C-alpha cells in the first residue's frame, strides 16, 4: 500500500475534505489572479457595477473574521472578572496578566482530535455547531458599529436580527438530537423551549422602539436617538429595557438562564458529546451571542454609536498637512525609533536589571507601539466620526458584556418551570402592556 493511500485511509472525514478543499482553493486563487491580470479592465468595471454585491461579500468576510477576536476578548474578560469576583486570581501565566489565555484555548481546541462518538447521527452532529455559529455571525451583519460602518442597512434590520437569532435554536436542537445522549437531548429540548418562549417578549419589547422610531432599520433607529442623552430610548422605554435585557439573557443562554448547559443537572447539555473544534464552535457562538445581544441593547436603547455628550471642539485635523506622504512616513519611523529608546530607558530605570538589554529593547518597542497606537487612535478619534462612533459603541456594548459576566458570577440558576412561568406570566403581559402604552402615547401625541 502506497504512502498516499495509507495517509488517506487514516485521515478523518473533515481532514479529507480539507485535503480536497485547500488545493482547490489554491488553484481558484491563482485562477482569480490570472483572470484579474488578463481581464483587468472589464473585471474592475464589473465590480464597480455591482457595488452592493461586493459590499456584501466584503462585509460578510469582515464580520466572520471579527467574531474570533471578539470571542477571545470576552472569554478572557469572563475568566478574569469572575475570578476576581470569586476572590481568585484567574489566568496569569500566558502573556501579560494571562491575556493570551483565550488564544491558547483556541489553539487547544484546534489541535484536539476530531471525534464523534459511536451512535451519533454524523451529518447532523457535524452541522449543528456550524449552524449555531453561523446564526450568530449572520446577525452581526446588520449591527451599525459606527456611522457608515455596518454590513447592510436593511430596512427590516430588526426583523432580520430576530429571524437570524432564532435560528440558533435549530443548531442547539440538532446538537441535542444527534448526540445520542440523553443529557444532550434534554439540553436541546430545554433550549428549544426556552428560546422560543423568550423570543416573544424579546421581540415585543423591541417593537416599542420600532413604533417610536418609525422604522426597522438599525441605522435609522440609532439616528432617531442622536442628539442628547435624553433622546436615548432607554428613557422613553424603561420597562422595555428591563424586559429586553432579561429576555436577551435567556436568548443568549447565559446565567441565570443557562439551563441548556446546566452542569449540575444535565452534564453539559447539548454540548456533552462535543469536543475539539466542534465544541469550540459552540463555545465561540455563545460568546459571540453575548456580544450580539449587548450590541443590540446598545443599538435599540442606549443610542448605538452616538456619543453621550457633544464635544466642545471640532472634529478636524485640517491643520495637519497630509499632502506630503513620504514626510509623514519618515516622521512616524523616527518617532517609533525615538519612542522605543525612550521607553527602553524608562524600563531600565523602573525595572532595574531584571531585564536583559534585548529584552529591554523589545519591551520598549512594545510600549512605544502601544503609545503610538494610542496616539494614532486619539487622532483618529478626533478626526473621524466613525472612530469616535466605534469607540462609544464598543464602550457601551462591553459595559453590557460586563453585566452579563457579573450576573454569571452572582446568580444561581433558575428552575425550568420557573423559567417558563416567568416568560409567560410576567414578561409577556408586561411587554404587551409596554407596547400598548407606547402605541397609545404615539397616537395621542402625534395627533
Amino acid at each position, binding site marked *: *500500500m502506497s504512502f498516499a493511500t*495509507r495517509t488517506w*485511509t*487514516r485521515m478523518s472525514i473533515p481532514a479529507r475534505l480539507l485535503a480536497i478543499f485547500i488545493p482547490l482553493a489554491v488553484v481558484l486563487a491563482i485562477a482569480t489572479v490570472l483572470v484579474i491580470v488578463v481581464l483587468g479592465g472589464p473585471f474592475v468595471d464589473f465590480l464597480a457595477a455591482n457595488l452592493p454585491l461586493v459590499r456584501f461579500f466584503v462585509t460578510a468576510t469582515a464580520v466572520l473574521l471579527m467574531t474570533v477576536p471578539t470571542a477571545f476578548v470576552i472569554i478572557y474578560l469572563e475568566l478574569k472578572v*469572575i475570578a476576581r*469576583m*470569586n*476572590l*481568585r486570581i484567574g489566568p496569569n501565566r500566558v502573556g501579560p496578566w494571562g491575556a493570551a489565555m483565550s488564544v491558547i484555548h483556541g489553539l487547544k481546541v484546534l489541535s484536539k482530535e476530531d471525534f464523534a462518538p*459511536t*451512535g451519533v447521527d454524523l451529518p447532523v452532529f457535524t452541522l449543528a455547531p456550524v449552524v449555531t455559529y453561523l446564526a450568530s455571525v449572520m446577525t452581526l451583519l446588520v449591527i451599525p458599529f459606527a456611522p457608515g460602518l455596518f454590513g447592510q442597512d436593511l430596512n427590516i434590520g430588526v426583523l432580520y436580527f430576530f429571524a437570524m437569532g432564532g435560528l440558533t435554536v435549530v443548531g442547539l436542537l440538532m446538537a441535542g438530537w444527534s448526540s*445520542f445522549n*440523553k*443529557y444532550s437531548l*434534554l439540553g436541546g429540548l*430545554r433550549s428549544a423551549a426556552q428560546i422560543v418562549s423568550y423570543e416573544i417578549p424579546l421581540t415585543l419589547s423591541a417593537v416599542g422602539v420600532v413604533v417610536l422610531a418609525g422604522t426597522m432599520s438599525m441605522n435609522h433607529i440609532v439616528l432617531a436617538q442622536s442628539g442628547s442623552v435624553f433622546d436615548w430610548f432607554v428613557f422613553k422605554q424603561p420597562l422595555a429595557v428591563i424586559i429586553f435585557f432579561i429576555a436577551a439573557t435567556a436568548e443568549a443562554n447565559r*446565567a*441565570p438562564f*443557562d*439551563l441548556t448547559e*446546566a*452542569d*449540575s*443537572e*444535565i*452534564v453539559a447539555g447539548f454540548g456533552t458529546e462535543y469536543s475539539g473544534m466542534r465544541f469550540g464552535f459552540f463555545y465561540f457562538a455563545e460568546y459571540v451571542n453575548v456580544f450580539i445581544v449587548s450590541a443590540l441593547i446598545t443599538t435599540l436603547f442606549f443610542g448605538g454609536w452616538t456619543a453621550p455628550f457633544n464635544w466642545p471642539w471640532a472634529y478636524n485635523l485640517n491643520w495637519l498637512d497630509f499632502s506630503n506622504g513620504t514626510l509623514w512616513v519618515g516622521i512616524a519611523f523616527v518617532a517609533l525609533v525615538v519612542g522605543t529608546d525612550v521607553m527602553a530607558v524608562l524600563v531600565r530605570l523602573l525595572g532595574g536589571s531584571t531585564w536583559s538589554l534585548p529584552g529591554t529593547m523589545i519591551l520598549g518597542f512594545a510600549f512605544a507601539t502601544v503609545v503610538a497606537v494610542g496616539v494614532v487612535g486619539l487622532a483618529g478619534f478626533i478626526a473621524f466620526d466613525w472612530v469616535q462612533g466605534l469607540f462609544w459603541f464598543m464602550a457601551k456594548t462591553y459595559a453590557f458584556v460586563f453585566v452579563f459576566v457579573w450576573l*454569571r*458570577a*452572582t*446568580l*444561581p*440558576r*433558575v*428552575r*425550568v*418551570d*420557573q423559567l417558563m412561568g416567568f416568560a409567560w406570566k410576567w414578561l409577556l403581559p408586561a411587554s404587551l402592556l409596554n407596547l400598548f402604552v407606547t402605541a397609545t402615547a404615539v397616537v395621542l401625541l402625534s395627533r
Partner: protein
Amino acid sequence: MPTQPTDDEHGQPTEPVSRSAAGVRAGAHARGGQPEAAAEVAPSPSPSPPAPAGMRTGAHARGSQRDIAAPAEPAAPAAPAAPAAATTAPPAPASSGPAASSFGSVQHGHDPEAVRARLAAMPRPSADDPRVLLDRTSDADLFEPIPPYPTRTEREAEFYSLGDGEMFLNVGPQHPATHGVLRLVLKLSGEQVVDVDPVIGYLHRGVEKICENSDYYHVIDQVDPLEYISSLFQEWAAVLTFEKLMDVQVPRRAEYIRVLTSELLRIASHSLYMGFLALDLGGITPILYGFIERDEIVEMLASVTGARMLFNYFRIGGVNGDLNHEFMSRLGDWMSRAAKETEANATLLNENEIFVRRARGVGVLDRETALRMGVTGGNLRASGVAFDVRRAHPYSVYPELQFNVPTRDEGDSLARYLIRVDEVRESIRIIDQCLHNMPDGPIMAKLPRLLRPRPGRAWGAVEGPRGMMGVYAISDGSDQPFRFRIHDPSLLNLETVPLLLPGNLLADTMAIVSSLDPVMGGVDK
C-alpha cells in the same frame, strides 16, 4: 474445576452476581488460569450496611449477566470447551420482561480468542487501521435501558420496566454534581422524576472489618477518612466508645480542646455545605467563599494537629497535642471576624431570590418520615424534631456549655440550609465559651501502653455536622475490638432520597441530594 456458579451450588441466585464485582473480575484476569485464587479474593456479600429498602450497592450494580460467567473464564486455557459455553450460553436465570431481553443481546466474551475472532470478523476501513470499532449490531440497544443484571426482586422488575413516555437517566457516579461517587438511576417522564434507584458502594473499603483487625490505637486513623471533610467527629465517636469500654476518665482540658476543635470543624463543614448547595443550584461564587472559611479553619487545626484533612488527633484518654501559640493567634484572628464573615456568606444566599425560590418547598421531609427513616442531625431538626446528641445524650463537657438547638418546621431544602446557618452561629458561641472556660491541666489520661479492655460492649455517639455519628464496639479482652460497627448519619440521611425525589424536576435532584449533605466516604464505609 470451578464451573459456572449455578443456583444449585450457591443456594440463591444472587450470590454469583455479588462475587463478580469489577475488582474481582480484574483479579481473575490478572491471575489468568488460577480461578481458585480469584475465588478467594471475591468478597462475600456485604454483611453490613443493613440493605436499605430501594438501595443497592455498587458491587451489585456492576454485576451483569455476562459477569456471571466471569469466574469460569480463567479456566479457558485448561478446558477449551469452557469459553464457548461462557461466551455463548451464560446461565440465564429465569427472568422476563423487556429489560432482560434487551440485555440478553449484548454478549462480549472475555476470552481473548473469542475477542480476536470477533475483531477479525468486523468490517474495518483498512487492514492496518489501528482503531477498534465498536460492534454496531447492538446499536439498537444502546439507547434502551439496560438493567444491571437480571432483575431479582419485584421492586427491581417494577423499576426497570418503563411506562409510556418515560426514560431512564443514569446520573453518576461520574456526574459532575453528585457528591462523590453516588449513582442515581432516575426514571424520568419529561423532566419529572418518576422513580429513582440509588446505587451506593463505589467507595466501600470495609473499614469496619479493618478496624476489627486493628489495635484500639489504630482504629482512630482508620475511621478518619469516612466523612473526610469532618474527620474529628468519627475519631471522637470511636474514642468515646473505647473510653466507655475502658472506663477512662478524660482530663477536662482535653475535653475542652475536643469541643473547641470539633466545633471549628463543624463550621468548616457547614461552610462547604452552603457553598456546594449553591453550586448545585448553579451559583459558582459561594463555594469559593466557603472554601476560604474552611481553609482558615483547617490551617488553624493543622498548626495543632499537623494535618489539614485527616487529623488523627483525638486519643483514647485525651488529645494528641496541646493548643499552641500559632493556633491561638490564628483562632483569635479568625474569631474577631468570624461572626461577620459567616453572616455575610450566608446573606449571599439567604437574600438571593432565585436561591430561596429554588430551595423552598422542594424535598419536603415530614417529621414522621424523618423519624421513621432514622434521619438525624440538621436534617431532622429541619423537620421539627429538636434532637441533638449534645443535648439528648450529653457527652464531654457539653452540659456545661450554653447553646441552643435550632429547629424548623418546614422540612424542605431551604429549612435544612437555614438550620446549618443557625448551627454555625451556635458553634461560634460554643467556641467563645470554650476559650473563656478553658481549664489548665493535662491533656491525656494515664493509660497503659497496651490497651486491653475488659470483655464488654459499648455504644458512643457524638453530634457530627451531618447527624449522630455513632460507634458500637464489643471487646473480647484482646487488644483489638472483637466487633466494630459504625452508625454513619450520611447513609441514613441518603436513604430518604427515594422518598424525596419522585415528583420533583430533574433540576431539583441535585438540590435535594445536596441539601441532605451526604458524604460518600461515610455512606460507603
